């Protein structure tokens, strides 16, 4: 308790409070720009914080890391473009809410989720870090491979209501992830002599294309403003009340987010989508998901916000980063002499516990900023199309361009824009494709590692209890929609026979 009181006192020093606010605002702005996620944001901040004290620097970077997700959810909700892959699930219900004029409500739900999910996640991080880290260590390559396959199956089966198309979309994502150097042999695959493809298809450029460019084309075609009813409905506080109407969804999503956050590699994009899919599966009205159901936004946002502290569990406790952003965070910790590991809690008490307090406070800052700005930000959905379409394109494509300062990256986004548009017209959803692209390398790496460990025997994929549970869950998730419709059909037939 003493260490916490000391950390709180340290946090309330003016320079740390300023770092907290600055990090929060910087994080929101970085999150809003498609392409610049927390990893890029933190990397860009290194020169700025390098001369600061370790505590202040970690407060700034921690706050930035926490707030990036909210920035990304703003664009996901308002213009159907996730700022980062982690916000992919938010668009499923967030954007349809905007079309109904409820953009402000969706944004305040997202702000409340940042507060609740962030605090729940951080508290769990503080109290369960050692336990969770120990459990995650039991996962071998086979378990990671199967976890990723489960995540893809759940998304493919539930996200669209058409399992087959979802699986094809996920397959396309995994296939595209094989472009570039093979992670095991180093052999070049499917680059066709194009230099920029050697490192693989860049995910951010693909995200910009699949969501921003596609959305711009759809808006240009229809010439309607994003809010189809042409006005805003509902107050910011309505979002807060709505959020607390679903306590079960909140707790379930926070647990999913935290658990997935602890597993290296799956990350926030997986957390949001799995929580959304679970909420749909558990719901009494699954048909409303994907059409602007607030529970969809609540689930995905709570999960991604709880995932971020989970992501830091292994990073801080064992020095194993769970994602690219966590790896950058780990690097910054090392720069400031805070060496992660079991001893860090004893050796760097002030730095670590002040970081925890900063994560909780940044959730509060996010909530206040979000609630203040929600109504004004939602007005974006009323802007005329001839203005909003080029703005979406400029902000999206500049995100693509800024990563390597190459116009070729913009071209990649445009190609993915065409793909996204055609998929949309064909009734496919691009979300499983994105998840496949994000998880592809991790899936392949763990597949090969597992086979190396078992000397080529496939029995490794079903020998452990965890593997068996994961396989069972995958089968259930894929068969679930078919069994559900079969049950409904049989029920309907029973009623008809009864009437006859």
């Amino acid at each position, binding site marked *: 308790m003493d260490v916490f009181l000391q950390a709180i006192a340290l946090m309330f020093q003016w320079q740390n409070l300023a770092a907290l606010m600055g990090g929060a605002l910087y994080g929101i702005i970085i999150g809003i720009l498609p392409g610049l996620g927390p990893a890029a944001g933190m990397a860009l901040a290194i020169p700025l914080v390098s001369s600061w004290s370790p505590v202040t620097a970690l407060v700034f970077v921690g706050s930035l890391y926490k707030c990036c997700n909210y920035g990304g959810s703003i664009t996901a909700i308002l213009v159907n473009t996730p700022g980062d892959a982690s916000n992919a699930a938010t668009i499923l219900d967030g954007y349809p809410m905007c079309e109904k004029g409820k953009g402000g409500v969706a944004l305040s739900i997202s702000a409340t989720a940042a507060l609740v999910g962030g605090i729940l996640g951080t508290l769990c991080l503080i109290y369960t870090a050692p336990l969770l880290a120990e459990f995650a260590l039991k996962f071998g390559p086979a378990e990671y491979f199967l976890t990723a396959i489960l995540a893809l199956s759940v998304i493919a089966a539930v996200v669209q209501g058409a399992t087959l198309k979802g699986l094809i979309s996920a397959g396309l994502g995994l296939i595209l992830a094989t472009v570039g150097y093979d992670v095991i042999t180093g052999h070049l695959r499917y680059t066709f002599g194009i230099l920029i493809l050697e490192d693989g298809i860049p995910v951010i450029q693909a995200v910009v294309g699949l969501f921003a460019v596609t959305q711009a084309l759809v808006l240009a075609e229809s010439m309607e403003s994003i809010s189809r009813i042409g006005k805003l409905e509902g107050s910011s506080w309505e979002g807060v009340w709505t959020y607390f109407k679903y306590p079960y969804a909140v707790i379930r999503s926070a647990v999913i987010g935290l658990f997935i956050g602890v597993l290296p590699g799956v990350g926030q994009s997986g957390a949001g989508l799995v929580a959304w899919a679970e909420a749909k599966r558990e719901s009494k009205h699954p048909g409303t998901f994907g059409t602007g159901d607030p529970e969809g936004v609540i689930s995905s946002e709570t999960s991604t916000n709880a995932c971020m502290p989970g992501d830091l569990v292994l990073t801080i406790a064992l020095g194993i980063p769970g994602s690219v952003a966590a790896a950058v965070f780990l690097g910054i910790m090392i720069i400031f002499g805070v060496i992660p590991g079991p001893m860090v809690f004893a050796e760097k008490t002030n730095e670590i516990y002040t970081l925890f307090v900063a994560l909780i406070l940044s959730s509060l800052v996010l909530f206040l900023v979000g609630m203040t700005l929600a109504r004004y930000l939602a007005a974006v959905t009323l802007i*005329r199309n001839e203005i909003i379409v080029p703005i979406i*394109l400029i902000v999206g494509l500049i995100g693509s361009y800024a990563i390597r300062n190459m116009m070729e990256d913009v071209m990649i986004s*445009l190609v993915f824009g065409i793909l996204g548009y055609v998929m949309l017209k064909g009734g496919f959803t691009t979300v499983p494709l994105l998840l496949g692209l994000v998880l592809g390398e991790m899936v392949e790496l763990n597949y090969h590692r597992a086979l190396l460990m078992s000397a080529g025997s496939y029995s490794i994929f079903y020998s452990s209890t965890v593997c068996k549970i994961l396989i069972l869950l995958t089968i259930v998730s894929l068969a679930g929609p078919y069994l559900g419709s079969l049950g409904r059909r049989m029920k309907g037939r029973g009623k008809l026979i009864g009437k006859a």
Partner: protein
Amino acid sequence: MLEKLKRTEVWFKLVLLAFFGFWYARAFSFPQQSRQFPHLIAVPSLILTLISLITDFTKEKEVQGEIAGTDDSELTTLDESARKERRKRFWQAWAIILVSMAVGFLGGFLFSAFFLLLGFALLFGNRNNLIKNMILTVGITMATYVTFQWFMDVPLLRGVLW
């Protein structure tokens, strides 16, 4: 049969079939370990696409699934003139994007931003709002320059010409 082939969904699946097949065949030129994973993914994807395609042709009535976040223009009946108008706007948008990107290659991304705004204002905007749109075009271009070039050091004026 021919009617069904005209649907985006059907021809996209045909393209996917060819794509997965090509991906599978191409993998044979890689070392054994490098082709294992592409084969592992391409085969089930190919089979699933084939099943989906066969279902499209065998099902008499089109089942309209609940499609999250998709534009339902192909699932609802649009009259021919509305369809033509949409198609025209789609191609106009692409023309603006391509011209802007070509200009960007030559002079830098800032020119792309300017031409995107200008193109949409001229081709999509209401004539009554022309002056307002022009002011916005210049204003947003300047804001883009200040935000990204000044504050974030993104080289917006780097093109083939300079």
